């Protein structure tokens, strides 16, 4: 089940430094929303607020609302473990569990949450590897350590791992940044398929990529959301001059 992610007046601080300033954005279900902006603008922080991964670090504080469906996940009472089961995340650098085999990497979330055992576990793992377009490449090496796969395969393994626990939202933090063009193409095709079932929010430095895969694009600068709109429109007629400058490479 996919749900809209609605961010309302979100501000975020690391200690005294304000990283996000009053950001509001809606990422609609079954759509890809791309976050673009220069390094250090706060787009990754924005992404990591949505699964509250920043709570782990001392000095982080947050104000505003993030609704998944109707539920404000920034509420103090939110069960973070349950939240992260519902919000899958793909990182910039592929991070399969190094001590686990290909199979166990995908099974890890299922085992963790006690979602499947025995035969149904094996079926789920296969289904997720197929969905991640990795099955044909790894079906004979399921017992090998996941860390021995190529970078692109590792990233698809991470996607399969995230798929296994059936999240509602997919967060992707520059998932292709460390991959070659062919692997990037694989992942992009995968993202297009994911959006048929999930809400996908992706941070990318690659504007062509944003244009290729996203329905909506949001431009973040110095912690502010400058503008957000349908990708096709934003890339042709940016309303804000800063967006236009960034898109045309005339910034700074």
């Amino acid at each position, binding site marked *: 089940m996919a749900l809209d992610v609605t961010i309302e007046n979100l501000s975020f601080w690391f200690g005294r430094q304000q990283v996000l300033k009053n950001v509001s954005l809606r990422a609609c279900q079954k759509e890809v929303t791309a976050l673009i902006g220069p390094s250090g603008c706060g787009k990754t922080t924005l992404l990591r607020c949505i699964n509250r*991964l920043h709570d782990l670090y001392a000095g982080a504080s947050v104000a505003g609302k993030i609704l998944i469906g109707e539920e404000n996940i920034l509420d103090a009472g939110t069960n973070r473990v349950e939240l992260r089961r519902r919000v899958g995340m793909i*990182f910039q650098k592929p*991070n399969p*569990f190094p*001590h686990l085999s290909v199979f166990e990497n995908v099974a*890890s979330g299922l085992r*963790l949450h006690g979602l499947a055992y025995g035969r149904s576990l094996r079926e789920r793992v296969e289904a997720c590897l197929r969905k991640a377009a990795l099955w044909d490449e790894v079906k004979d090496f399921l017992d090998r350590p996941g860390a021995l796969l190529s970078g692109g395969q590792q990233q698809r393994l991470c996607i399969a791992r*995230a798929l296994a626990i059936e999240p509602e939202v997919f967060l992707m933090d520059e998932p292709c940044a460390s991959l070659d063009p062919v692997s990037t193409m694989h992942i992009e095709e995968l993202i297009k398929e994911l959006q048929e079932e999930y809400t996908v929010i992706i941070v990318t430095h690659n504007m062509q990529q944003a244009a290729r895969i996203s329905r909506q694009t949001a431009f973040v600068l110095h912690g502010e959301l400058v503008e957000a709109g349908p990708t096709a429109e934003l890339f042709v007629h940016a309303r804000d001059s800063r967006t236009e400058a960034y898109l045309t490479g005339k910034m700074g």
Partner: protein
Amino acid sequence: MPDTKWRLVKSFVPEAVCRLAALLVISVLFLILYYIFQRGAGVISPAFLTALPTPVGVPGGGIGNALLGSLVMVALGALLAVPCGVAAAVYLDQNPKSRLAAACRFASRVLTGVPSLIVGLFVFTLLVLRTGQYSALAGGIALAVMMMPVITLSAEEMLRLVPNSWREASLALGASKKQTVLRLVLPAAAAGIAVGVMLAVALAAGQTAPVLLTALTSIFWPENLLQPTASLPVLIYTYAISPFADWQQQAWGAALVLVVMVLMLNIAAQLFIAVKNRRG
């Protein structure tokens, strides 16, 4: 060109000095090994390893009880020190900046530098004097005190090598902190922690003062943990300073057994690292 020559000499001399120093370190080990082998190999036999000691002049004496006693006390020490040390390391890794962590790290570093004689005296005063009893238990505790800081510090290093990105992968998958530590961080660091434990065990196995002051020694088989117990280092010490040739001979044999055990632990640790590295 003389300038170039001078520069070559300048770069060659320090390199040669360092190379010599490295050779010196290696040769010290080999000289010790060679010497002990030469003097001790003659007395090694199955009977020597399994028999009880005999009085001076009576042939057939062995080191069986001392070998067993050493194994028991080192195992006991490891049993106490490993869980404690690893648990403390997990705390240090999870709360690296807390005051308790800083204090724990400082204490561990100081403890690794405290002479083993002092550790022996400490346990002697605390346990042996109070209970009026030398025992293998006290010996094990003294060895645990020796091992714990080494294990804590090395295990923390190993845990810290587990990258943040792996931990975040686990947390983002909905694992709690506890699950992340138990299912990811500890297994990923296990091989490295094991190496640290082996080295700590090797270090403890050869300690004389802590066991001498706490377990004393014995000429009988150890029957329980609450009686004086023989150990290899103490046996070597007593035999070596005795004026009797056959005891001195046996001291060399016992020294060989101890050194080989420590050597094997170190080699095992190296192999462990090699296998781990090959697996990536």
